[in-house]
């Protein structure tokens, strides 16, 4: 289990793309950014939402699961690595399998690329570049306790529903306690946060079974 992880707090994101630029500067994909920044309600709001690799845990990362070349390794500490370039055949199965739309294919090189949680930094105790620079703390790296010390009472989710499938992730999402009826990435409603049932009245898209409970012991 990872001691630390990234928490994504869309309520803080200002859409500045410092994370995108920082990701380009990090040594693992020098010159390329592995972050997506989405503008979910453009035209009505300036809201923005960063997506990094969620480092899925259960079921074992869908991208790794479908890779015919066994190129995507998951490390013992839960980091889903970028496809091994000596094995990757550029088939894009991982792109199709990822529920969060994370892996990218470099069409020229016929190679997959994805966020590997700045393994070169995190494995030696530094934070990933994106979470280090994010001016607002929309990307936060640390433990859930460290997050709560800075943001008292904050609620987090690390499980997401896609139809009947529940995916538990290594990266977690901040879900403001009073706004839990809002969907999280995956586009589907949360029905439960930290063991607490969430009013379904606002969400008629259905399908969701549970959302995560991080107890701070990860």
């Amino acid at each position, binding site marked *: 289990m990872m001691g*630390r992880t990234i928490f994504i707090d869309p*309520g*803080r*994101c*200002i*859409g*500045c*793309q*410092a994370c*995108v*630029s*920082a990701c*380009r*500067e990090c*040594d693992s994909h020098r*010159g*390329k*950014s592995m*972050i*997506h*920044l*989405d*503008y979910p309600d*453009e*035209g*009505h*709001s*300036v*809201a*923005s939402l960063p997506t990094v690799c969620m480092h899925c845990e259960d079921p074992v990362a869908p991208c790794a699961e479908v890779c015919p070349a066994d190129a995507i390794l998951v490390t013992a500490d839960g980091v889903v690595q970028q496809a091994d370039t000596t094995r990757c055949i550029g088939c894009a199965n991982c792109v199709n399998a990822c529920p969060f739309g994370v892996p*990218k*294919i470099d069409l020229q090189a016929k190679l997959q690329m994805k966020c590997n949680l700045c393994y*070169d930094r995190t494995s*030696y*105790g*530094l*934070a990933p*570049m994106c*979470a*280090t*620079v*994010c*001016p*607002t*703390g929309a990307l*936060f*790296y*640390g*433990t859930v306790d*460290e997050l709560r*010390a*800075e*943001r*008292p009472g904050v609620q987090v989710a690390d499980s997401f529903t896609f139809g009947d499938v529940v995916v538990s992730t290594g990266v977690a999402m901040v879900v403001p306690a009073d706004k839990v009826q809002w969907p999280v990435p995956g586009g589907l409603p949360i029905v439960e946060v930290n063991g607490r049932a969430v009013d379904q009245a606002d969400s008629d898209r259905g399908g969701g079974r549970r959302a995560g409970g991080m107890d701070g012991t990860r």
Partner: protein
Amino acid sequence: MSSRPLPLDPSIAPPGTRDFRDAGGIPADRWHADQNGETLVPTHCCFCGVQCGMYLRVDRAGKVFGVEPRNHDINRMRLCPKGINAYQQVNHPDRLTAPLMRRSRDEPFREVSWEEALDFTAAEVRRIQGAHGNDAFGLLGGASLFSEKTYLVGKFARVALKTRHVDYNGRLCMVSAAGANKLAFGIDRAGNPFSDILLTDCLLIAGSNVGECFPVMTQYLWGARDRGATLIVIDPRETAIARTADIHVALKPGTDAAFFNAVLHVVIEENLVDEEFVAAHTTGWDEVRAAVADCTPETAGDICGVPASQVVQVARAFAGAGRAMAWHARGIEHHSQGVENCLTVINLCAATGNLGRPGAGYGTITGQGNGQGGREHGQKSDLLPGGRSISNPEHRRQICEIWGIEETELPPAGTSMMEMVWQMQRHEIRGLIGICNNPFVSLPNYTTVKSGYDALEFHAQFDFFLSETAANAHVVLPVTTWAEDEGVMANAEARVVKHNKAQEPPAGVRTDTWVMCQLAQRLGAGAKFAYQGSRDVFEELRLASAGTVNDYYGITYERLEETGGIAWPCPSTDHPGTPRLFEDGRTAHPDGKIHMQVVEWHPPMDPYDEDHPMSLTTGRTVAHFLSGNQTRRLGALVEQTPRPWVEVHPSHGFRNGDPVRVVTRRGSEVFPALVTAAIRPDTVFIPYHWPVPTAANALTIDALDPRSKIPEYKVCACRIEAAERVDEVPAPPVAPGHVAYPAAQVSRTDPLPPTAPQGRGTAERS
């Protein structure tokens, strides 16, 4: 009052985000900089007034090639996209590396030796001044220069050029706030450090798009919010911070003074005035109280186009909080009533007793890196070093003594930057040297600016890229970037920080200090400009500021390196500096009081009529800096925001990307529409970082605030209409002998299709 503990200690990095330098334990086979023969040079970002700490990564050959976040207590490792990409300009292929010269604007530039360029410049100065008097030659400096250089600009103008006409581009930035602070407090700086924001119970942000202009400051805003502080945002647009504010007042541009007067009216009506504080610490209260008697929420609501109830809400939230703070920026300062807008905010802080305490006070957020320090030491037309007035005989005498000149030799006050352009049009100013500024993009009413510059008989420009303004010059002198010299800047908190030299300048490039000293020598003032470098100039600056309101005497390079920054005034080398003003209850006025000022709202200078019924307002985007001369050449930033757009409300019937013509009394231009409900239906917004034909400043009005002489960038009358196609953005000018930045580097992923809407929608695409 909020009871939660302080969550953010600004001097400690966020968990996990250890400084690269302190991390230790990284084995030799990793990419650790020291292991690869790299060095990390601690310095600060060259851009905005936050002045984030960063390391520049320097390779074995001594060249800057990257950036690492640095745990400086201003930014706690955070950086915005400009800061992250800033290093790319240091060794950019567009850098100018030899002086360029031509005798008339019809000729192409040719590369010449420094000797020839400097001799020609000095000869032109002598020719013009010989024929038309010393004041026929002007000097325009910049607020991105180190304070040492801004000091030198002021001295060079008065001692070497002997002209009264010197000003700087900070005139376009925060001089309104400076003027108001000087009137009310006798001192021109923010009252509190950023860290006080974390302690406040109510934070009012007026006219500042913090998320895009000062992104790293948002961590303080969000930190305050985490503790339960109320966040109030006053802005015609729903900006990223307005989106999450408790109260967002989307008032009509140009109505801020009416709004704040009405807020004060409600504070008085509801007995929320801190009578004890007002009696002990202010003058002018009776006049102000009487003047706002008629400023009811209903009247203000009509003027500002917001519900009257919001006025009441803001008054109760601000005055009812135990500790309240107001921070503002260009949104209320870029007006023909800019000084007065700031004074209404000061009146509110003073009436509610919110000054000089942790979590209670005010601040203006400087736009340019050295917007604060850039005017403190004599670069502004009416100021001498140490913030002394050039019209005060005692101040003149003191400076003449330090400079070793007769008082009769010191010219009187000159005019402001925009007024100098009008003087160029009238041939009163015939020659000009520009240092570190780009008025062709940054001044309002481009047609006027161009005609002023075209009328110059001689124009020289210092720059490290060929800016739109430099492309108009006779002589272009290639100077260093911030990474190739050392010096200090004062950030928005008036904290003086030190920038360090990370690499040697490219061959052929000289420091601005060296160039000014060389010119001074050729103009017969060499003995007064015998500096070896920034350190020499800083030592003189320390002495020249000693005993003034802007006292730097106790600040040394060594102390800055040890402490990470010292806020002035700092009168002695054992003084810790002054992060928070007025803690002893005294302002810098001789009577120690806050001088409250009566303000009467007046409408903006460009009247609305049937042809021009809407407001045009302008501002920044997060990816670009000021005139874009620097950031429009950096691939990632170009890709993030490749071209300007016009933000229009959905009620006008446009779709995203539609070509929209914006027409004002100065001209018209066509931009792609960004349709968004986040703007008032009666207002449009254009970001201002681009040159013609997509220059917001070809449309804005050159009306000035009568006191600060700041242009009214933030409001003018306009109309919008459907157009055929959008105007193309020209590529940045490239000097002869230099290659354009290779297309592959400009855009590291696919460029956007030319018709795509720009702006916040241009996310990273795979």
